[in-house]
Protein backbone atom coordinates (compact mmCIF):
# COMPACT_ATOMS: atom_id res chain seq x y z
CA UNK A 1 0.00 0.00 0.00
CA UNK A 2 1.42 3.38 -0.97
CA UNK A 3 1.28 6.15 1.59
CA UNK A 4 0.49 9.47 -0.12
CA UNK A 5 2.50 11.48 2.39
CA UNK A 6 2.82 12.24 6.07
CA UNK A 7 -0.35 14.36 6.26
CA UNK A 8 -3.08 12.68 4.28
CA UNK A 9 -6.40 14.46 3.71
CA UNK A 10 -8.33 11.40 4.80
CA UNK A 11 -6.92 8.40 6.66
CA UNK A 12 -8.97 5.23 7.22
CA UNK A 13 -7.71 3.08 10.10
CA UNK A 14 -9.20 -0.39 10.67
CA UNK A 15 -12.48 0.83 9.28
CA UNK A 16 -15.45 -1.42 8.65
CA UNK A 17 -18.91 -0.26 7.77
CA UNK A 18 -21.70 -2.74 8.32
CA UNK A 19 -25.25 -1.87 7.30
CA UNK A 20 -28.30 -4.02 6.77
CA UNK A 21 -26.32 -7.09 7.83
CA UNK A 22 -23.71 -6.61 5.08
CA UNK A 23 -20.17 -5.32 5.21
CA UNK A 24 -20.20 -2.25 2.95
CA UNK A 25 -16.59 -1.23 3.39
CA UNK A 26 -13.44 -2.61 4.91
CA UNK A 27 -10.30 -0.47 4.89
CA UNK A 28 -7.50 -1.44 7.25
CA UNK A 29 -5.11 1.34 6.34
CA UNK A 30 -6.02 3.68 3.57
CA UNK A 31 -4.78 7.22 2.97
CA UNK A 32 -6.09 9.80 0.52
CA UNK A 33 -3.84 12.68 -0.38
CA UNK A 34 -4.74 16.33 -0.57
CA UNK A 35 -4.90 18.16 -3.92
CA UNK A 36 -5.68 17.20 -7.48
CA UNK A 37 -8.15 14.53 -8.54
CA UNK A 38 -8.11 11.10 -6.92
CA UNK A 39 -10.13 8.65 -8.96
CA UNK A 40 -11.64 5.75 -7.04
CA UNK A 41 -12.47 2.61 -8.99
CA UNK A 42 -13.49 -0.94 -8.21
CA UNK A 43 -16.28 -3.42 -8.81
CA UNK A 44 -19.84 -2.93 -7.58
CA UNK A 45 -20.12 -3.62 -3.88
CA UNK A 46 -16.48 -2.81 -3.17
CA UNK A 47 -17.49 0.14 -1.01
CA UNK A 48 -16.66 3.13 -3.24
CA UNK A 49 -19.83 5.04 -2.41
CA UNK A 50 -19.61 4.08 1.26
CA UNK A 51 -16.05 5.41 1.35
CA UNK A 52 -17.21 8.79 0.02
CA UNK A 53 -20.17 8.82 2.39
CA UNK A 54 -17.77 8.20 5.29
CA UNK A 55 -15.74 11.22 4.14
CA UNK A 56 -18.90 13.38 4.22
CA UNK A 57 -20.10 11.80 7.49
CA UNK A 58 -23.36 10.59 5.98
CA UNK A 59 -22.11 7.21 7.20
CA UNK A 60 -20.10 6.49 10.34
CA UNK A 61 -17.68 3.57 10.59
CA UNK A 62 -18.99 0.59 12.55
CA UNK A 63 -15.44 0.01 13.77
CA UNK A 64 -12.20 1.95 13.33
CA UNK A 65 -11.57 5.62 12.68
CA UNK A 66 -11.59 8.04 9.79
CA UNK A 67 -9.21 10.98 10.21
CA UNK A 68 -9.57 14.27 8.35
CA UNK A 69 -6.33 16.26 8.23
CA UNK A 70 -5.18 14.25 11.26
CA UNK A 71 -8.30 14.71 13.39
CA UNK A 72 -10.83 11.97 13.95
CA UNK A 73 -14.08 12.79 12.18
CA UNK A 74 -15.92 11.84 15.36
CA UNK A 75 -14.32 14.91 17.01
CA UNK A 76 -15.28 17.34 14.24
CA UNK A 77 -18.55 19.28 14.15
CA UNK A 78 -20.49 17.46 11.42
CA UNK A 79 -22.34 20.36 9.80
CA UNK A 80 -19.26 22.51 9.32
CA UNK A 81 -17.37 19.46 8.06
CA UNK A 82 -20.06 18.74 5.47
CA UNK A 83 -19.84 22.31 4.24
CA UNK A 84 -16.08 21.92 3.82
CA UNK A 85 -16.37 18.50 2.17
CA UNK A 86 -19.13 18.87 -0.41
CA UNK A 87 -20.74 15.94 -2.16
CA UNK A 88 -22.35 15.34 -5.54
CA UNK A 89 -24.39 12.15 -5.81
CA UNK A 90 -24.72 9.56 -8.54
CA UNK A 91 -28.22 10.71 -9.41
CA UNK A 92 -28.84 14.45 -9.38
CA UNK A 93 -31.15 15.48 -6.54
CA UNK A 94 -32.79 18.77 -7.51
CA UNK A 95 -34.98 20.23 -4.77
CA UNK A 96 -38.48 21.44 -5.72
CA UNK A 97 -38.37 25.13 -6.69
CA UNK A 98 -36.35 27.19 -9.13
CA UNK A 99 -32.66 26.75 -9.82
CA UNK A 100 -32.00 30.04 -8.00
CA UNK A 101 -33.90 28.76 -4.96
CA UNK A 102 -31.82 25.59 -5.04
CA UNK A 103 -28.61 27.62 -5.06
CA UNK A 104 -29.88 29.66 -2.13
CA UNK A 105 -30.58 26.58 0.02
CA UNK A 106 -27.70 27.32 2.36
CA UNK A 107 -26.22 30.54 0.98
CA UNK A 108 -27.59 34.06 0.81
CA UNK A 109 -26.75 34.80 -2.82
CA UNK A 110 -27.73 37.83 -4.87
CA UNK A 111 -28.75 37.49 -8.52
CA UNK A 112 -25.23 38.29 -9.70
CA UNK A 113 -23.71 35.56 -7.56
CA UNK A 114 -26.30 33.07 -8.83
CA UNK A 115 -25.42 33.93 -12.44
CA UNK A 116 -21.72 33.66 -11.67
CA UNK A 117 -22.16 30.19 -10.16
CA UNK A 118 -24.26 29.03 -13.08
CA UNK A 119 -21.65 30.28 -15.49
CA UNK A 120 -18.99 28.40 -13.53
CA UNK A 121 -20.83 25.11 -14.16
CA UNK A 122 -21.49 25.98 -17.81
CA UNK A 123 -25.17 26.85 -17.39
CA UNK A 124 -26.72 29.98 -18.91
CA UNK A 125 -27.79 32.66 -16.41
CA UNK A 126 -31.42 32.43 -17.59
CA UNK A 127 -31.58 28.89 -16.19
CA UNK A 128 -31.88 30.50 -12.74
CA UNK A 129 -35.64 30.94 -13.02
CA UNK A 130 -36.38 27.48 -14.41
CA UNK A 131 -37.90 24.76 -12.25
CA UNK A 132 -34.98 22.65 -11.03
CA UNK A 133 -36.91 19.40 -11.37
CA UNK A 134 -37.51 20.10 -15.07
CA UNK A 135 -33.84 20.34 -16.07
CA UNK A 136 -32.24 17.65 -18.21
CA UNK A 137 -30.01 15.09 -16.48
CA UNK A 138 -26.80 16.89 -17.42
CA UNK A 139 -28.15 20.33 -16.50
CA UNK A 140 -29.50 18.99 -13.25
CA UNK A 141 -26.19 17.42 -12.24
CA UNK A 142 -24.35 20.67 -13.02
CA UNK A 143 -26.93 22.60 -10.99
CA UNK A 144 -26.33 20.18 -8.09
CA UNK A 145 -22.60 20.78 -8.43
CA UNK A 146 -23.22 24.54 -8.35
CA UNK A 147 -25.38 24.09 -5.25
CA UNK A 148 -22.58 22.15 -3.57
CA UNK A 149 -20.10 24.89 -4.46
CA UNK A 150 -22.20 27.49 -2.63
CA UNK A 151 -20.60 26.35 0.64
CA UNK A 152 -17.12 26.91 -0.90
CA UNK A 153 -15.88 23.38 -0.08
CA UNK A 154 -12.18 22.61 -0.02
CA UNK A 155 -12.94 19.00 -0.96
CA UNK A 156 -15.44 17.75 -3.52
CA UNK A 157 -16.72 14.18 -3.35
CA UNK A 158 -18.24 13.04 -6.65
CA UNK A 159 -20.02 9.68 -6.55
CA UNK A 160 -20.20 8.51 -10.18
CA UNK A 161 -21.69 11.87 -11.16
CA UNK A 162 -21.62 11.12 -14.90
CA UNK A 163 -23.06 7.60 -14.84
CA UNK A 164 -26.48 8.70 -16.06
CA UNK A 165 -25.29 11.44 -18.41
CA UNK A 166 -24.65 11.48 -22.15
CA UNK A 167 -20.97 11.73 -23.24
CA UNK A 168 -21.17 15.47 -23.94
CA UNK A 169 -22.64 16.26 -20.53
CA UNK A 170 -20.12 13.93 -18.89
CA UNK A 171 -17.26 15.73 -20.61
CA UNK A 172 -18.52 19.09 -19.37
CA UNK A 173 -18.59 17.78 -15.82
CA UNK A 174 -15.08 16.35 -16.15
CA UNK A 175 -13.83 19.74 -17.36
CA UNK A 176 -15.46 21.36 -14.33
CA UNK A 177 -13.77 18.88 -12.00
CA UNK A 178 -10.42 19.60 -13.60
CA UNK A 179 -10.96 23.33 -13.29
CA UNK A 180 -11.90 22.96 -9.61
CA UNK A 181 -8.81 20.85 -8.94
CA UNK A 182 -6.63 23.46 -10.63
CA UNK A 183 -8.12 26.14 -8.42
CA UNK A 184 -7.15 24.21 -5.28
CA UNK A 185 -10.16 22.00 -4.52
CA UNK A 186 -9.32 18.36 -3.83
CA UNK A 187 -11.62 16.12 -5.87
CA UNK A 188 -12.41 12.49 -5.03
CA UNK A 189 -14.16 11.03 -8.06
CA UNK A 190 -15.75 7.58 -8.11
CA UNK A 191 -16.16 5.98 -11.52
CA UNK A 192 -16.79 2.63 -13.18
CA UNK A 193 -15.39 3.86 -16.48
CA UNK A 194 -11.67 2.94 -16.92
CA UNK A 195 -11.26 5.47 -19.74
CA UNK A 196 -12.64 8.24 -17.57
CA UNK A 197 -10.43 7.15 -14.68
CA UNK A 198 -7.36 7.33 -16.92
CA UNK A 199 -8.40 10.65 -18.43
CA UNK A 200 -9.25 12.35 -15.16
CA UNK A 201 -7.16 10.90 -12.37
CA UNK A 202 -4.01 12.43 -10.95
CA UNK A 203 -4.04 9.52 -8.49
CA UNK A 204 -5.88 6.22 -8.57
CA UNK A 205 -7.38 4.28 -5.72
CA UNK A 206 -8.76 0.84 -6.42
CA UNK A 207 -11.07 -0.89 -3.99
CA UNK A 208 -11.28 -4.64 -4.46
CA UNK A 209 -14.14 -6.97 -3.81
CA UNK A 210 -14.66 -8.35 -1.24
CA UNK A 211 -13.79 -5.11 0.53
CA UNK A 212 -10.63 -6.38 2.16
CA UNK A 213 -7.83 -4.19 0.83
CA UNK A 214 -7.36 -0.91 -0.87
CA UNK A 215 -4.33 0.25 -2.79
CA UNK A 216 -3.22 3.67 -3.90
Amino acid at each position, binding site marked *: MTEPGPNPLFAFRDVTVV*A*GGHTRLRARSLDIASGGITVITGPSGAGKSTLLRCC*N*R*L*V*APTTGRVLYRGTSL*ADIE*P*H*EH*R*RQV*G*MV*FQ*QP*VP*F*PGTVAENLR*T*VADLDDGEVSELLERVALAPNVAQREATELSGGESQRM*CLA*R*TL*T*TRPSVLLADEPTSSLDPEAAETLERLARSLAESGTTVLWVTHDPAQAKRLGDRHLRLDQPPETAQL
Partner: protein
Amino acid sequence: MIAQTGATAPSLWGLAAAGILVALALGVSAWRHLGVGGSIVWAAVRAAAQLAAIGGVLTVVVDDAAPLVWSWCWVVAMVVFAAFTVRRRAPEVPAAFPLALLAFSATSVISLGVLFGFGIFELTPRAVVPLAGMVVGNSLSSTVLAARRTIGEVSDHRDRVEAHLALGLTGRNSVQRELRTAVRTALIPQIETTKSVGLVFLPGAMVGLILAGVEPAEAVRVQLAVMYLILGSVAVTTTVMAIGLSTRLFTADDRLAELPAPE
Protein backbone atom coordinates in the same frame (compact mmCIF):
# COMPACT_ATOMS: atom_id res chain seq x y z
CA MET B 1 -76.21 27.36 28.64
CA ILE B 2 -78.21 24.98 26.54
CA ALA B 3 -81.94 24.79 27.09
CA GLN B 4 -83.15 21.24 27.23
CA THR B 5 -86.79 20.85 26.33
CA GLY B 6 -87.16 17.10 26.57
CA ALA B 7 -85.17 13.88 26.55
CA THR B 8 -85.72 11.26 23.88
CA ALA B 9 -83.26 8.51 24.83
CA PRO B 10 -84.52 5.19 23.47
CA SER B 11 -86.10 2.75 25.89
CA LEU B 12 -84.51 -0.66 26.35
CA TRP B 13 -87.09 -2.03 23.93
CA GLY B 14 -86.15 0.69 21.49
CA LEU B 15 -82.51 -0.18 21.87
CA ALA B 16 -83.27 -3.83 21.23
CA ALA B 17 -85.19 -2.81 18.11
CA ALA B 18 -82.10 -0.86 16.95
CA GLY B 19 -80.39 -4.24 17.02
CA ILE B 20 -82.37 -4.96 13.82
CA LEU B 21 -79.78 -2.80 12.07
CA VAL B 22 -77.00 -5.03 13.40
CA ALA B 23 -78.98 -8.00 12.09
CA LEU B 24 -79.13 -6.20 8.74
CA ALA B 25 -75.32 -5.91 8.73
CA LEU B 26 -75.09 -9.63 9.58
CA GLY B 27 -77.47 -10.41 6.73
CA VAL B 28 -75.32 -8.46 4.25
CA SER B 29 -72.23 -10.28 5.50
CA ALA B 30 -73.88 -13.68 5.07
CA TRP B 31 -75.43 -12.84 1.70
CA ARG B 32 -72.19 -11.55 0.17
CA HIS B 33 -69.99 -14.10 1.95
CA LEU B 34 -67.96 -11.30 3.53
CA GLY B 35 -66.87 -13.45 6.44
CA VAL B 36 -67.21 -10.60 8.96
CA GLY B 37 -70.32 -11.87 10.77
CA GLY B 38 -68.35 -12.80 13.89
CA SER B 39 -66.61 -9.44 13.92
CA ILE B 40 -69.92 -7.59 13.60
CA VAL B 41 -71.44 -9.45 16.56
CA TRP B 42 -68.27 -8.96 18.60
CA ALA B 43 -68.16 -5.25 17.74
CA ALA B 44 -71.82 -4.73 18.65
CA VAL B 45 -71.56 -6.61 21.95
CA ARG B 46 -68.24 -4.98 22.83
CA ALA B 47 -69.62 -1.49 22.09
CA ALA B 48 -72.62 -2.18 24.31
CA ALA B 49 -70.46 -3.49 27.16
CA GLN B 50 -67.93 -0.64 26.89
CA LEU B 51 -70.56 2.07 26.70
CA ALA B 52 -72.50 0.56 29.61
CA ALA B 53 -69.35 0.46 31.72
CA ILE B 54 -68.30 3.96 30.70
CA GLY B 55 -71.84 5.24 31.26
CA GLY B 56 -71.77 3.86 34.79
CA VAL B 57 -68.47 5.50 35.60
CA LEU B 58 -69.40 8.75 33.85
CA THR B 59 -72.56 8.96 35.93
CA VAL B 60 -70.33 9.31 38.97
CA VAL B 61 -67.58 11.41 37.39
CA VAL B 62 -69.72 14.01 35.63
CA ASP B 63 -72.14 14.43 38.47
CA ASP B 64 -72.32 18.12 39.27
CA ALA B 65 -71.49 17.35 42.88
CA ALA B 66 -68.41 15.27 41.98
CA PRO B 67 -65.00 16.90 42.54
CA LEU B 68 -63.47 18.31 39.35
CA VAL B 69 -60.23 16.43 40.00
CA TRP B 70 -62.01 13.18 39.09
CA SER B 71 -62.67 14.57 35.64
CA TRP B 72 -59.04 15.58 35.20
CA CYS B 73 -57.95 12.08 36.27
CA TRP B 74 -60.26 10.74 33.61
CA VAL B 75 -58.66 13.04 31.03
CA VAL B 76 -55.17 11.85 32.01
CA ALA B 77 -56.30 8.24 31.65
CA MET B 78 -57.73 9.00 28.20
CA VAL B 79 -54.47 10.64 27.09
CA VAL B 80 -52.39 7.67 28.29
CA PHE B 81 -54.71 5.14 26.70
CA ALA B 82 -54.70 7.07 23.42
CA ALA B 83 -50.89 7.11 23.43
CA PHE B 84 -50.87 3.33 23.92
CA THR B 85 -53.30 3.01 21.04
CA VAL B 86 -50.99 5.00 18.76
CA ARG B 87 -48.10 2.71 19.67
CA ARG B 88 -50.21 -0.36 18.97
CA ARG B 89 -51.45 0.95 15.62
CA ALA B 90 -48.03 2.14 14.44
CA PRO B 91 -45.51 -0.26 16.01
CA GLU B 92 -42.86 0.62 13.43
CA VAL B 93 -42.72 4.24 14.58
CA PRO B 94 -39.82 4.83 16.98
CA ALA B 95 -40.79 6.30 20.36
CA ALA B 96 -44.45 6.36 19.35
CA PHE B 97 -45.72 6.20 22.94
CA PRO B 98 -43.82 9.13 24.48
CA LEU B 99 -44.35 11.27 21.38
CA ALA B 100 -48.08 10.54 21.30
CA LEU B 101 -48.27 11.22 25.03
CA LEU B 102 -46.61 14.58 24.44
CA ALA B 103 -48.87 15.36 21.46
CA PHE B 104 -52.13 14.51 23.26
CA SER B 105 -51.04 16.29 26.42
CA ALA B 106 -50.12 19.41 24.47
CA THR B 107 -53.38 19.51 22.57
CA SER B 108 -55.43 18.83 25.70
CA VAL B 109 -53.78 21.69 27.55
CA ILE B 110 -54.09 24.12 24.63
CA SER B 111 -57.60 23.19 23.48
CA LEU B 112 -59.20 22.85 26.88
CA GLY B 113 -57.30 25.93 28.03
CA VAL B 114 -58.92 27.96 25.23
CA LEU B 115 -62.39 26.49 25.77
CA PHE B 116 -62.46 27.03 29.51
CA GLY B 117 -60.09 29.99 29.69
CA PHE B 118 -62.28 32.07 27.38
CA GLY B 119 -65.45 30.81 29.04
CA ILE B 120 -66.69 29.15 25.84
CA PHE B 121 -67.88 26.32 28.04
CA GLU B 122 -68.36 26.36 31.76
CA LEU B 123 -65.68 24.47 33.68
CA THR B 124 -67.79 21.65 35.08
CA PRO B 125 -67.26 17.87 35.22
CA ARG B 126 -70.06 17.53 32.66
CA ALA B 127 -68.05 19.62 30.16
CA VAL B 128 -64.45 18.52 30.87
CA VAL B 129 -64.76 14.80 30.16
CA PRO B 130 -66.76 14.89 26.91
CA LEU B 131 -64.75 17.77 25.46
CA ALA B 132 -61.46 16.09 26.32
CA GLY B 133 -62.86 12.96 24.71
CA MET B 134 -63.56 14.97 21.55
CA VAL B 135 -60.02 16.33 21.57
CA VAL B 136 -58.23 13.02 22.10
CA GLY B 137 -60.59 10.72 20.23
CA ASN B 138 -60.73 12.81 17.09
CA SER B 139 -56.96 13.35 17.04
CA LEU B 140 -56.13 9.67 17.32
CA SER B 141 -56.32 8.59 13.69
CA SER B 142 -54.63 11.77 12.47
CA THR B 143 -51.78 11.27 14.92
CA VAL B 144 -51.19 7.72 13.70
CA LEU B 145 -51.37 8.95 10.11
CA ALA B 146 -48.93 11.81 10.79
CA ALA B 147 -46.44 9.42 12.40
CA ARG B 148 -46.62 6.89 9.58
CA ARG B 149 -46.48 9.52 6.84
CA THR B 150 -43.47 11.19 8.46
CA ILE B 151 -41.57 7.90 8.31
CA GLY B 152 -42.91 7.21 4.82
CA GLU B 153 -42.04 10.65 3.42
CA VAL B 154 -38.51 10.64 4.82
CA SER B 155 -38.00 7.08 3.61
CA ASP B 156 -39.35 7.87 0.12
CA HIS B 157 -37.16 10.97 -0.15
CA ARG B 158 -34.06 9.69 1.57
CA ASP B 159 -31.85 10.95 -1.27
CA ARG B 160 -33.29 14.45 -0.96
CA VAL B 161 -32.87 14.49 2.81
CA GLU B 162 -29.25 13.33 2.52
CA ALA B 163 -28.59 15.93 -0.18
CA HIS B 164 -29.70 18.57 2.34
CA LEU B 165 -27.52 17.03 5.06
CA ALA B 166 -24.56 16.96 2.69
CA LEU B 167 -24.89 20.74 2.36
CA GLY B 168 -24.35 21.08 6.11
CA LEU B 169 -27.98 21.51 7.15
CA THR B 170 -29.20 20.03 10.41
CA GLY B 171 -31.41 16.96 10.41
CA ARG B 172 -34.44 19.01 11.43
CA ASN B 173 -33.89 21.50 8.60
CA SER B 174 -33.32 18.68 6.13
CA VAL B 175 -36.79 17.20 6.56
CA GLN B 176 -38.93 20.35 6.50
CA ARG B 177 -40.53 19.46 3.17
CA GLU B 178 -41.26 15.89 4.27
CA LEU B 179 -42.78 17.08 7.55
CA ARG B 180 -44.99 19.58 5.75
CA THR B 181 -46.31 16.84 3.46
CA ALA B 182 -46.89 14.44 6.36
CA VAL B 183 -48.78 16.99 8.47
CA ARG B 184 -50.78 18.20 5.46
CA THR B 185 -51.76 14.61 4.62
CA ALA B 186 -52.85 13.99 8.20
CA LEU B 187 -54.80 17.26 8.39
CA ILE B 188 -56.67 17.08 5.10
CA PRO B 189 -59.36 14.57 6.22
CA GLN B 190 -60.28 16.81 9.16
CA ILE B 191 -60.29 19.92 7.00
CA GLU B 192 -62.58 18.16 4.51
CA THR B 193 -64.84 16.99 7.33
CA THR B 194 -65.05 20.54 8.68
CA LYS B 195 -65.88 21.87 5.20
CA SER B 196 -68.64 19.35 4.58
CA VAL B 197 -70.29 19.53 7.98
CA GLY B 198 -73.97 20.37 7.72
CA LEU B 199 -74.03 19.75 3.96
CA VAL B 200 -72.98 16.12 3.72
CA PHE B 201 -73.45 14.96 7.27
CA LEU B 202 -74.72 16.06 10.65
CA PRO B 203 -72.12 15.40 13.30
CA GLY B 204 -72.83 13.18 16.28
CA ALA B 205 -72.76 15.85 18.97
CA MET B 206 -75.31 17.96 17.14
CA VAL B 207 -77.57 15.00 16.38
CA GLY B 208 -77.35 13.95 20.03
CA LEU B 209 -78.31 17.42 21.24
CA ILE B 210 -81.23 17.71 18.85
CA LEU B 211 -82.47 14.25 19.81
CA ALA B 212 -82.14 15.26 23.44
CA GLY B 213 -84.52 18.13 22.73
CA VAL B 214 -82.13 21.06 22.43
CA GLU B 215 -83.09 23.81 20.00
CA PRO B 216 -81.25 23.33 16.66
CA ALA B 217 -79.78 26.85 16.78
CA GLU B 218 -78.17 26.08 20.13
CA ALA B 219 -77.05 22.67 18.94
CA VAL B 220 -75.37 24.38 15.97
CA ARG B 221 -73.44 26.73 18.23
CA VAL B 222 -72.20 23.86 20.35
CA GLN B 223 -71.32 21.83 17.29
CA LEU B 224 -69.44 24.69 15.69
CA ALA B 225 -67.35 25.18 18.81
CA VAL B 226 -66.69 21.43 18.87
CA MET B 227 -65.67 21.37 15.18
CA TYR B 228 -63.21 24.23 15.73
CA LEU B 229 -61.94 22.42 18.81
CA ILE B 230 -61.33 19.24 16.83
CA LEU B 231 -59.65 21.08 13.95
CA GLY B 232 -57.28 22.85 16.30
CA SER B 233 -56.60 19.65 18.24
CA VAL B 234 -55.77 17.66 15.14
CA ALA B 235 -53.45 20.43 13.92
CA VAL B 236 -51.59 20.44 17.25
CA THR B 237 -51.25 16.66 17.65
CA THR B 238 -50.11 16.03 14.09
CA THR B 239 -47.57 18.85 14.23
CA VAL B 240 -46.17 17.81 17.61
CA MET B 241 -45.96 14.18 16.49
CA ALA B 242 -44.25 14.99 13.17
CA ILE B 243 -41.73 17.43 14.69
CA GLY B 244 -41.02 15.13 17.63
CA LEU B 245 -40.57 12.16 15.37
CA SER B 246 -38.25 14.04 13.03
CA THR B 247 -35.70 14.38 15.82
CA ARG B 248 -35.72 10.59 16.31
CA LEU B 249 -34.81 9.89 12.70
CA PHE B 250 -31.27 11.23 13.05
CA THR B 251 -28.26 10.18 15.05
CA ALA B 252 -26.54 12.56 17.44
CA ASP B 253 -24.18 13.64 14.63
CA ASP B 254 -27.13 14.23 12.26
CA ARG B 255 -26.88 11.17 10.08
CA LEU B 256 -30.14 9.77 8.80
CA ALA B 257 -30.82 6.58 10.71
CA GLU B 258 -31.96 3.35 9.11
CA LEU B 259 -35.71 3.77 8.88
CA PRO B 260 -38.21 1.11 9.89
CA ALA B 261 -40.25 -0.51 7.13
CA PRO B 262 -43.99 0.17 7.43
CA GLU B 263 -45.99 -2.80 8.73
